[in-house]
């Protein structure tokens, strides 16, 4: 299955090349072009090579299993129709690359252009080669995004930004509709596999969900192909560089919409709903687009509306649902791509060589660039449907289909008349393009003399125009077999006969063609004077600006309604949000309790008055801390510590020594932390508040108290109910039984943390590290409030005392503070280190472990800071907490990855007994090294947080002398520079 591998490569290679292109230097214009051309040639070569496998309805598939349970597999498939599209995408892509090489200015950032271009090519190939509906939508959205990036390539231009945004909004919205539509189809069929879906046409059409699915799929297709009423985005996308327009708006992006219509034509067409919606949208677009195109003054604008019109033609054909109409549609897709790409390129050359695209300023260019002019004239003739060119053939088929339609009188009249009128208009705008630009007097007011472009820049147009001619003169040989392969894959094996020859004899379609051509020429002559005045916009409907309507809708939805909704539903105040959160939590917890909780079953553990007494103290501490938290923060903090200690005692009491150790240590560190922070909070003096309390505040307090009591009672009830009922069969027994056998440790909780659930612990220490770094980063820019900058009151009193005494210097009292404890604290440092080691080493078998040891170690450091002051410690000890954090994470990670070396999954632990002199047989588990990582990280994180806070006292007075807002680039004023 070598060829199916290439099927994947053809989609993947452009994306890889896109990454490479993005990384090349800014000036590598030639390298970028060569790379992109190589990718396009590769795609083209593979496409051509695969041709024998897709003839006669052949399908080549490559499936990669992804989530088979959900029907989500990566499937790439190619049939005759997808093949034709691949040919267009890679072939026109190659020509556009060559063109872009000369079009893009050396000043433009080319890596970005070619990177986006290649990504777009890959997405487009992904769309046409997807064999799974969801996958198709993913690539579909990728084309929306990459085309957004390409249209907005010159993002310094406001039109480019607006055009790109509008294209993305419209096509992105359509993409969402398409996703829903695909999900519905997948639901109807029971599979997302395109081949299965294509075989289930009757099932889809008879399903009650057919109409919603149809509407959603059409939303996607019509937005993408810029069909009425979504046509307005395409002209604004002309702000893109011309190579982008030539590629996206001739052969690829806008063709994705009609590609989708053709793809789902076999399973969704030939219902009334399909006929009316698709034909109406197509015919309206066809006539309207052609009409507006006549009155455009911008060359690319004219081509854009002409593109809209031609896509309308294809859509109309598909709406008619007859097999021959589908043949014509597919044929016209290919024809339109060739002549429109060449016309866009010609417009680009004109713009490039004259500096303007305005038809009013251009004229008589034939004498300056005869080659380009001739090429553009042939391509325009193809666009107008002149015989012996490819545009004529498909247009003739279109006329045939409209004329032969036999539905009802209205349709019988509207279709041929609409088609002929649109044909007439297309002759008019083609004439305007050719006559207005290339004939007449020499242009005046150009800032340069126009001349022919480099030969290689013209080469792509030459090739495309040659194709127009070849297909137009000898269609049966040039495109016949390829068209047949595409048609069979869409219409099926019993495709009716169709003739590709140029001459079909005198018949109605020929008459329609003649009327269109002659009428077009007459109309152009009649309109010539009006057009020469160069009035912007089409008469009658010129004021109806799609863009303005779009902007208004966008502003209403995304700004006015959003604001109103936010005002109605949202609040920026924290308290109501938290109250809502608590209320919801209470409701969520109450719902399961409605069913009842079952009878009491467990005998209560024997009552111990000591425990009751302990919690008596704990409860008083908690309530008092609550009461004092507003005006007496230090008191509240001490009382909070009391409640914490009682919690710790509870853990000891009920067989949880590890928790008790950790809780105690964390309690100490938290208290020190908050103590360090207290200094920066505002002073608050207690006042007799109850009298001045407003009614509103009183109501709020009662509500909060109610919420708090309900929450508390709920928690109490729940925990009581659970504690008095037997536990279900948990996973605890497994850990108890295997902790020693598999983990080599007797302290089950520690073995769980560093072994069984090591990955959780790894995540946890990562969080701790992130928090420490965040704290550090936040405090680097810390600026205290103005009323906290002065020295604290206590220090001022002490200094004043020193100043009064002749035998003392200012600051002595502060330095003498806690002199003896300070000495003891300094001496304790080695003891604490030993204690930390002890707790660390015993952790695997006895209560302790890396986390507790780490906290102990950091307490050792903090004691030094408390004893000697920040400067004293840092003159003697070099602590680099950030490195500790990094080392800890690395050690833990490396231990986890070490198990890969032995062929085990991540974080598998090994253990062994080792004889250590004087200590004896000790189990040595690799988990111990992991625990070492935990230890190191915890030391680093805790010390970093505490030091960062402690440093503020040293930094703050300095920081406060700077101006309130310091810009990075502002140089300090002389008196502030040190």
């Amino acid at each position: 299955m070598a060829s199916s591998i290439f099927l994947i490569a053809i989609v993947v290679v452009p994306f890889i090349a896109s990454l490479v292109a993005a990384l090349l230097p800014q000036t590598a214009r030639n390298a970028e072009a060569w790379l992109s051309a190589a990718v396009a040639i590769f795609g083209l070569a593979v496409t051509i090579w695969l041709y024998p496998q897709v003839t006669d309805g052949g399908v080549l598939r490559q499936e990669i299993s992804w989530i088979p349970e959900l029907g989500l597999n990566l499937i790439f498939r190619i049939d005759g129709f997808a093949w034709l599209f691949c040919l267009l995408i890679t072939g026109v892509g190659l020509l556009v690359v060559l063109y872009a090489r000369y079009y893009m200015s050396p000043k433009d950032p080319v890596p970005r252009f070619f990177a986006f271009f290649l990504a777009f090519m890959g997405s487009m190939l992904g769309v046409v080669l997807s064999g799974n509906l969801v996958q198709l939508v993913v690539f579909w959205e990728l084309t929306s995004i990459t085309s957004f990036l390409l249209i907005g390539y010159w993002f310094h231009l406001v039109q480019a930004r607006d055009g790109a945004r509008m294209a993305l909004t419209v096509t992105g919205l359509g993409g969402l509709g398409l996703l829903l539509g695909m999900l519905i189809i997948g639901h109807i069929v029971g599979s997302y596999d395109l081949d299965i879906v294509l075989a289930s046409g009757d099932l889809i059409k008879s399903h009650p969900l057919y109409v919603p699915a149809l509407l959603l799929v059409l939303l996607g297709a019509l937005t993408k192909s810029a069909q009425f009423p979504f046509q307005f985005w395409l002209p604004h996308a002309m702000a893109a560089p011309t190579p982008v327009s030539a590629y996206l708006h001739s052969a690829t992006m806008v063709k994705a919409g009609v590609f989708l219509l053709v793809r789902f034509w076999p399973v969704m067409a030939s219902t009334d709903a399909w006929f009316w919606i698709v034909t109406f949208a197509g015919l309206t677009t066809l006539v309207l687009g052609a009409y507006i195109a006549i009155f455009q003054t911008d060359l690319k604008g004219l081509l854009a509306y002409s593109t809209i019109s031609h896509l309308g033609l294809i859509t109309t054909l598909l709406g008619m649902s007859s097999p021959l109409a589908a043949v014509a549609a597919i044929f016209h897709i290919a024809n339109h791509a060739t002549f429109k790409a060449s016309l866009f390129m010609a417009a680009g050359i004109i713009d490039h060589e004259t500096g303007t695209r305005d038809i009013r300023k251009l004229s008589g260019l034939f004498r300056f660039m005869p080659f380009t002019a001739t090429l553009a004239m042939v391509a325009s003739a193809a666009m107008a449907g002149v015989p012996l060119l490819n545009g004529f053939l498909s247009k003739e088929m279109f006329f045939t289909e409209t004329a032969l339609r036999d539905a009802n009188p209205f349709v019988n009249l509207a279709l041929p008349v609409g088609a002929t009128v649109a044909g007439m208009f297309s002759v008019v705008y083609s004439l305007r393009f050719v006559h207005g630009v290339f004939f007449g007097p020499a242009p005046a007011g150009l800032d340069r003399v126009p001349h022919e472009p480099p030969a290689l820049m013209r080469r792509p147009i030459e090739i495309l125009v040659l194709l127009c001619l070849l297909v137009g003169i000898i269609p049966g040989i040039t495109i016949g077999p390829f068209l047949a392969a595409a048609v069979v894959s869409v219409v099926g094996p019993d495709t009716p006969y169709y003739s590709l020859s140029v001459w079909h004899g005198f018949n109605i379609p020929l008459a329609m063609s003649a009327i269109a051509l002659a009428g077009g020429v007459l109309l152009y002559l009649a309109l010539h004077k009006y057009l020469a005045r160069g009035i912007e916009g089409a008469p009658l409907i010129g004021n109806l600006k799609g863009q303005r309507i779009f902007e208004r809708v966008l502003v209403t939805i995304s700004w006015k309604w959003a604001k109103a909704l936010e005002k109605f539903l949202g609040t920026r105040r924290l308290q109501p949000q938290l109250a809502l959160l608590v209320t919801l939590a209470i409701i969520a917890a109450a719902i399961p309790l409605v069913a009842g909780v079952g009878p009491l079953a467990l005998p209560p553990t024997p009552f111990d008055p000591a425990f009751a007494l302990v919690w008596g103290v704990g409860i008083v501490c908690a309530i008092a801390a609550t009461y004092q938290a507003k005006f007496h923060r230090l008191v509240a903090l001490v009382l909070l510590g009391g409640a914490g200690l009682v919690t710790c005692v509870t853990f000891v009491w009920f067989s949880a020594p590890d928790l008790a150790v950790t809780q105690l240590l964390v309690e100490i560190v938290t208290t020190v932390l908050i103590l360090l922070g207290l200094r920066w909070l505002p002073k608050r003096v207690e006042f007799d508040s109850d009298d001045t309390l407003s009614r509103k505040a009183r109501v709020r307090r009662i509500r909060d108290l109610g919420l708090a009591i309900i929450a508390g009672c709920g928690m109490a009830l729940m925990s009581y109910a659970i504690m008095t009922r037997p536990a279900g069969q948990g996973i605890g027994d497994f850990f108890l039984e295997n902790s020693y056998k598999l983990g080599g440790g007797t302290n089950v909780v520690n073995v769980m943390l560093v072994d069984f659930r090591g990955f959780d612990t790894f995540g946890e220490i990562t969080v701790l590290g992130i928090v420490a770094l965040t704290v550090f980063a936040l405090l680097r820019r810390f600026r205290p409030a103005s009323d906290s900058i002065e020295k604290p009151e206590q220090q001022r009193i002490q200094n004043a005392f020193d100043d009064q005494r002749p035998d003392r210097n200012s600051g002595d009292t502060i330095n003498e503070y806690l002199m003896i404890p300070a000495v003891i604290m300094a001496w304790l440092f080695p003891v604490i280190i030993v204690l930390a080691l002890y707790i660390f080493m015993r952790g695997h078998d006895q209560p302790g472990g890396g986390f507790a040891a780490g906290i102990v170690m950091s307490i050792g450091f903090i004691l030094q800071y408390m004893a000697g002051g920040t400067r004293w410690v840092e003159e003697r000890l070099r602590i680099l907490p950030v490195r500790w954090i990094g080392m800890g994470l690395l050690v833990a990670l490396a231990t986890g990855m070490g198990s890969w070396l032995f062929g085990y999954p991540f974080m598998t632990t090994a253990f062994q007994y080792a004889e250590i002199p004087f200590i004896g047989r000790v189990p040595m588990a690799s988990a111990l090294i992991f625990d070492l990582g935990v230890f190191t990280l915890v030391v680093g994180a805790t010390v970093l947080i505490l030091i960062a806070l402690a440093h503020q006292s040293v930094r703050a007075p300095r920081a406060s002398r700077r101006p309130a807002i310091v810009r990075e680039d502002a140089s300090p004023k002389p008196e502030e520079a040190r």
Partner: protein
Amino acid sequence: MELILAIAVGVLTTCGVWLLLRPRTFQVIVGLSLISYAVNLFIFSMGRLRIDAAPVIEGGVIDPANYTDPVPQALVLTAIVISFAMTALFLVVLLAARGFTGTDHVDGRER
């Protein structure tokens, strides 16, 4: 004993929630600490109360009935660490907000 612990959890929760809904940042941080005690005890109580049954095994053949459930303990251990990290972060955010806005109101401005 179960009753005492349940009442303790209830009181801690009540105090915590009340403080959580107060306007001053320091009240909120104390409230969060009280709530985390309550929640830790609550999770811990899911393993039911056992005295003298610490999950530190002897080696050899093990009868799980002799030991308390280690799973809630491991969970609470993690919870203690995370609530420490949360308290630290919140404290620093509180200080930064106070320095930045000049007030210690939770909304960054006095009402």
